[in-house]
């Protein structure tokens, strides 16, 4: 049994295209992993549809994360938010993606899956992607006064050491 995808491609992609004719931007199928890139404006409705459709029933959000594409060959739009969906009923998996530029907000899916709350906060914290209509959009792991977003590719990983004497002299 594969990890879903393979045998589900025609059905899932067909249903999505039928329901959201303009929103499906790209379908990629590598091995047993099926990836669908969706227009940012449609992501919440697409998620709700995938969760509620009696045929598909992607009722479990496995993961929500983000990728900074700054150093990849195809770097625009810069950010990718990645959703890993699981259908327990059909034992199938699906990866959804939306692509946004810096500062552009993504619609929150907390209304679809409650569990997305902290995952979106983590993306907001470490990658700096805001989520629209999120009930509690605060940083998750870093302190509130932290500057920058640590998982971005242009975040400096080394800094000049500052000695305590220098700080005292200031």
């Amino acid at each position, binding site marked *: *049994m*594969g*990890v*879903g995808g393979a045998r589900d491609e025609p059905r899932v992609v067909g249903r999505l295209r039928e329901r959201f004719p303009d929103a499906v931007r790209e379908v990629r199928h*590598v*091995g047993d*992993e099926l*990836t669908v890139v969706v227009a940012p404006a449609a992501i919440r409705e697409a998620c709700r549809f995938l969760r509620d459709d009696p045929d598909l029933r992607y*009722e*479990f*959000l*496995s*993961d929500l*994360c983000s*990728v*900074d594409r700054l*150093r*990849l*060959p195809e770097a625009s739009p810069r950010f990718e938010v*990645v959703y*890993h969906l699981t259908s*327990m009923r059909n*034992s199938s*998996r699906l*990866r959804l993606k939306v692509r946004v530029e810096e500062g552009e907000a993504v619609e929150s899916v907390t209304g679809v*899956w*409650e*569990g*997305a*709350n*902290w*995952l979106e906060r983590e993306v907001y914290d470490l990658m700096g992607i805001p989520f629209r209509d999120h009930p509690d959009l605060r*940083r*998750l*792991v*870093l*302190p509130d006064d932290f500057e920058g977003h*640590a*998982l971005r590719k242009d*975040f400096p*990983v080394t800094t000049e050491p500052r000695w305590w004497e220098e700080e005292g002299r200031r």
Partner: protein
Amino acid sequence: MTETRTMTLNMGPQHPSTHGVLRLVLELDGEAVVRCVPHIGYLHTGMEKTMEDKRYQQAITVTDRMDYLAPMSNNLAFVLSVEKLLGIEATERAQVIRVMMVELTRIKSHLVWLGTHALDIGAMSVFLYCFREREKILDLYEMLSGQRMMSTYIRVGGLMADLPDGFERRVRDFIDEFPKRVDEYEDLLTHNRLWMQRTVGVGVLKREEAIALGVSGPALRASGVPWDIRKVWPYSGYDRFHFDISLAQNGDVYDRYRCRIFEMRQSTAIVRQCLDRMPKGPVNLDDPKIVPPPKPLVRRSMEALIHHFLLYSQGFTVPPGEAYVPIESPKGEIGFYVVSDGSNKPYRVRVRPPSLLNLQALPRMVEGRLVADVVAVIGSIDIVLGEIDR
């Protein structure tokens, strides 16, 4: 006229029952919890970022340190994603050894859970019993990899080394004795009136809530969802083993306890099957571009020396692409989403942290209940803060 005023209680981050450095802000009305707000991040060290700067073989060492109670499960999840990108599969012997070690890891992780959970509720002796058995698994780890905790034993393309002499006999000694030990824990707890008063009907998580919150692992199965990735999408040859998955209906602290006890027994059975059918053969793939050649060969063959040198100075490259392989860790679904740009270091690594999502369900389980129940519920969801904060 009476006025109800709530009080705010700060629990943690140094409270011993928070299993690490979790901080909860509790709003209390008398003894009852009105609101519970977890604060995390005290152990955040940027592990996902660190892995972007490590070669693939080096990055495995970082995974050990996420869920430090189940290092081999993390190794396996990461290695499976990388192997998928490379398009390789471990040898049969390596797969059986992986399953055996991952199941011993499950027992080890559940032992820490049971010991500390019982200690939190006030059962001291269970803690001592559990750590006695855990010590034996740590000894096995040490014998295998030279390390008691951060083993990095599972590698891309196979294993660090084959089993040392006498290892299988020691594992067999352990699993022959272990079911009796589980009976001992159960004698102490399962029908213990105090234990049941503290756990039955406490911290209930309903089936629909658990799914919507992304809860996985024993906590999900205790809520009545028969979902175990070892059965649904077998990896590493799990489809060749006979075992049952745990399942309970009430979703309370007691059911989560019963599920994990059941899993310890099942894991013992899987380890026994591994020993009985341990195949002969190599544990590493014969691919010198990925797996370092054996040391004696490096001393004799120039070509092997070159491969050795390249693998330890530059590592191997992975074709561009992305992969996610979920596995069933002791805590729940763990998987590494690895994005490769074709170089020798992962472009982006994301771990799906089961403890984080299970912890997110905590407010749902404790709000409306007593302060003392918070301690019981935290113990029952079996979190490791190293993995939550990463």
